[in-house]
């Protein structure tokens, strides 16, 4: 049913519909509303789940690891420093092939402390062996959680999924969302039946020592699954569309006015809505511009990106994160997609915007298009305030 609802509450509603056996989380802005709502649902007995209160994110991640290892569906959510505090467990969850689903309410990283949105937190954990999908709006954020469980629990996959949604912009934004009915959720997402679990009747060991004779194969196996999963996503998307009537195509990228485009921005998350506004405005004036939205960032859809951009002369990659001292994170992938290939953009410039919640306006996007010239630039910061860059120290 269509509702006017806060993003966080919509996520809590859909998680409730997935009936996780164990939920554990530690509150952190801007994730808090999601887990507050879930805790309330459990307390009200609307949701039959164990909500485990913990003293830190490290423990929250450990609790869902344990719950998943014991064979039940689990859920957690975090942001920023909380995700970093979880980090070693995050790697363990993937290494142990546990189908955990987590929401990352994207937020900047300290120091200086900043509670506002960018995508540095989840992007910094890109190598953990988790799928990462990025929502443009709250409908997607809701739908991607259902798709996340289907993907994670797929017997061919058995890997965790992080659903990333921009903090405040989506988590605290109220908009119209079609919240899937329980009956349809059950149809799309059957009860979780684990392939393996910790069971005293049939004991197994998980996450034990793998010496140099064994370790590499565990990494290789995850790498192979990630590669294969790129193909599974379109199948899951098709089934999703059949039940809910919303078509996310192959779930890898969205091509918006890219077909004949001379200039294309590549971006991820809610900023793509703003970019679409600018694309429409420019198209109305006859300018051939477009947007390539990355939906799935891990595994990275190199082949799809290549197909979408191979005939585009100029590409601007817009990152809401940085890899300090190197090319920006999405820019690296786009450049890699074309290295050694015959076709590809003549210019692939990289821009950084929106760090720590710096508002990305229509004008910011116009500026990206303006700076996308024949001269390639790298990690060019948009909307910097030069007056704040003057250095002043005491004598």
């Amino acid at each position: 049913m269509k509702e006017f609802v806060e993003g966080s509450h919509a996520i809590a509603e859909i998680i409730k519909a997935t009936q996780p056996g164990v939920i554990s989380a530690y509150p952190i802005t801007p994730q808090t509303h999601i887990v507050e709502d879930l805790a309330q649902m459990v307390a009200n007995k609307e949701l039959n789940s164990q909500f485990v209160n913990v003293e830190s994110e490290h423990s929250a991640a450990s609790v869902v690891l344990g719950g998943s290892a014991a064979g039940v569906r689990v859920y957690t959510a975090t942001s920023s420093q909380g995700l970093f505090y979880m980090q070693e467990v995050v790697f363990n969850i993937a290494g142990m092939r546990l189908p955990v689903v987590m929401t990352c309410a994207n937020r900047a990283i300290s120091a200086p402390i900043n509670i506002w949105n960018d995508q540095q937190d989840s992007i910094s954990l890109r190598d953990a062996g988790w799928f990462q999908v990025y929502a443009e709006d709250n409908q997607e954020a809701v739908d991607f959680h259902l798709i996340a469980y289907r993907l994670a629990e797929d017997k061919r996959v058995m890997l965790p999924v992080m659903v990333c949604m921009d903090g405040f912009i989506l988590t605290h934004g109220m908009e119209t969302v079609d919240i899937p009915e329980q009956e349809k959720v059950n149809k799309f997402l059957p009860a979780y039946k684990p392939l393996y679990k910790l069971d005293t009747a049939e004991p197994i060991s998980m996450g034990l020592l793998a010496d140099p004779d064994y370790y590499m194969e565990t990494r290789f196996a995850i790498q192979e699954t990630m590669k294969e999963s790129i193909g599974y996503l379109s199948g899951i998307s098709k089934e999703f569309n059949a039940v809910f009537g919303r078509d996310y195509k192959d779930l890898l990228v969205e091509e918006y006015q890219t077909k004949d485009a001379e200039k294309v921005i590549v971006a991820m998350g809610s900023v793509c809505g703003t970019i679409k506004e600018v694309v429409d405005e420019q198209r109305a004036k006859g300018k051939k511009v477009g947007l390539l939205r990355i939906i799935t960032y891990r595994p990275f859809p190199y082949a799809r990106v290549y197909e979408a951009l191979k005939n585009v002369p100029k590409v601007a990659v817009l990152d809401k994160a940085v890899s300090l001292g190197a090319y920006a994170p999405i820019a690296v992938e786009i450049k890699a997609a074309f290295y050694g290939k015959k076709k590809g953009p003549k210019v692939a410039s990289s821009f950084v915007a929106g760090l720590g919640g710096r508002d990305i306006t229509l004008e910011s996007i116009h500026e990206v298009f303006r700076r996308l010239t024949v001269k390639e630039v790298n990690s060019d910061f948009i909307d910097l305030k030069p007056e704040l860059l003057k250095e002043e120290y005491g004598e």
Partner: protein
Amino acid sequence: MKEIRIHARAGQGAITTAALLGFSYFNEGKYPYAFPNFGAARMGAPMNAFVRVDTDPVRLRSQIYEPDYVIIVDPTLMRGYNCFSGLKDDGVAIINGKEDMELPKLKAKQRVFVVPANEIALKNIGRPLGNTALIGAFAAATGELKLDNIIAVVKNRFKGKAQEGNIQAVKEGFEFVKNKLKAGLSGRQG
């Protein structure tokens, strides 16, 4: 597309105001996007809430710089900050304040309604939370939303005494502006 910018201090209910406006637009078949922007993330700190609304789902995610409408929940914010910044040439401002308050010079077609929303709230709710009175005033001043619809939304949001009081506050805010308009005052100019 219409854009509303709400100026308040954290804790004064601006997010609720944005939400109630959003629910009202939603009920009238529109696609609202209501969202906050926190400053210092402390109670009492200046903050904004926004509503952007259209006949199709809203894609634009930036803050609002050129609003059609401004709602000022706390007029003390006008001392240090230009709450009218970017207001459209024919924009409307609703201010929670006293009738004789000082106003900045505005453009010819801009209109301002100073509404004693806190007094209305104190009388009906017992607390100086003028939000619902301001929403009533907004509906009368702009013609954007139907009074019955707002009352239904407020009824759904509050319970018991607070429900009664807030519904009355919506009506009185609405009536206050209606009467001004009847008297031929299409909004004060500073």
